[in-house]
């Protein structure tokens, strides 16, 4: 069973034929080639497939593509604007917050949602915001520092 839907991804509109049983993650990675979004556990627990749908963090592996008709989606490919890395991405590089990098697309987007709603979060708020993104390399410390640093830059 198939259906044509319109998806607004990173500011561009795609009209795309999807099967009802395909997830948003399937479409992003396999139909649109947006492979920055990672398939981790594929069961809603690790956060590697996090995208932003209408301003809210969402797990693309647990979202049916057919339910995203006309919704605005941001993937990690949309975070840098006009060839300029987002402050969160720059900060992640400066703080060595990325090791293997598999979790980074997910937590960067979780952090973006946090800062969009709360530009000056506390450490606890940062921890709560990325609680849905598993990282097996960094121990989270550098991720937290890199997010807090962006909040500080904005304050200056």
């Amino acid at each position, binding site marked *: *069973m198939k259906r044509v839907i319109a998806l607004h991804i990173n500011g561009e509109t795609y009209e795309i034929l999807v099967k009802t049983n395909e*997830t948003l993650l399937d479409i992003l990675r396999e139909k649109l080639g947006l492979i920055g979004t990672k398939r981790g556990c594929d069961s809603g627990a690790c*956060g590697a497939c996090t995208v932003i749908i209408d301003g809210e963090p969402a797990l693309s592996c647990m979202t049916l593509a057919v339910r995203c008709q006309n919704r605005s989606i941001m993937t990690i490919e949309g975070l840098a604007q006009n060839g300029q890395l987002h402050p969160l991405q720059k900060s992640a590089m400066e703080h060595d917050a990325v090791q293997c990098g598999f979790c980074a697309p997910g937590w960067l987007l979780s952090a973006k949602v946090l800062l969009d709603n709360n530009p000056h979060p506390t450490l606890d708020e940062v921890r709560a915001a990325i*609680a*849905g993104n598993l990282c097996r390399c960094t121990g989270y410390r550098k991720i937290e520092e890199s997010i807090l640093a962006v909040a500080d830059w904005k304050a200056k």
Partner: protein
Amino acid sequence: MKLPEFEYVEPKSIRKACQLLKEKGDKAQAIAGGTDFMMALKNRLKVPEMLVDLRGLPHLNRISYSDKEGLKVGALVSLRQLAASPVVKEKYPILSRAALDVGTPQLQAMGTIGGNLCQDSLCLYYNRSPMLRQMLEPCHKLGGKVCHAVSRSKTCWATYCGDIAPVLLVSEAKIIIVDSKGEKIIPLNKFYSGDGKKPNVLKPGQILKEILVPPPSPSSGGAYLKFRLRKTIDYPLLGVALNLTMESYGQICKHAKLALTAVERAPILIEEADELKGKKMTDAVIEKLAKAAYKHAHPLNNICELTPQYRKDLVKDYVKLAVQEAFQFATKGGTI
């Protein structure tokens, strides 16, 4: 994981949604946030022919409050929206905090309050991949005749592990269920069947529409304490919700409601909490309440590897901690 095929429909009215769900019966599945259902679909625990998307239904994503009627929450309100609502934060802080205890921020943004109340019960012998399931004889929840959690049991013992239900139970919430014949209001307490196989009483064609919570009393305070191994993602291994109202002077209890989750096939209200009415909150009274809760808890080893006795022992400590926390809020003039 590839998903099985199904037909997808998006009714625009409640009447149409009820009609579709009734016609298709067991072969249709309603979906709201989908966080609970998608895993069941991936693991082939549920393989519906038709998926009925409830998100297009009008007016069910609203929160309203009045001092007289209390809180009214549409079933499609997301847990994130519920937690962030200024009126919920002010008047029902434990509800707001409990919503943030569910899953992860992503799951809170996707999952709805209605979906959380309708969450299926859990069992390590049932919630496993199709390949692992093949190694065991089908259990009651899979349509078989055995229970792997409680040997020789003739019924299913899957555990109810929702976080929101106990909090709404102690707030004496009611729910509106709608079907083709109309609406009916029932206390949330009557919503849970106590059957692990199907934890709630919704029939095909019925939809949970709204949740009604009475206004909080003055001098009341609440607590929801959730025990789990990680501070995020995990379902509760024990949840204790308490709502305590004190007389406006002194230490006398006016009203108390206590509920547990993750230790039975349904969230359970501990009736002995009603006996606190008119009593001074002494250590002996609190101890008696903790013992009553302990007696009603029946944790099994089917949701985690901790021994059931360990979780049962924790019930007493958590009830006492919940009383302390709720008492502080109540006597500071806070609300639940």
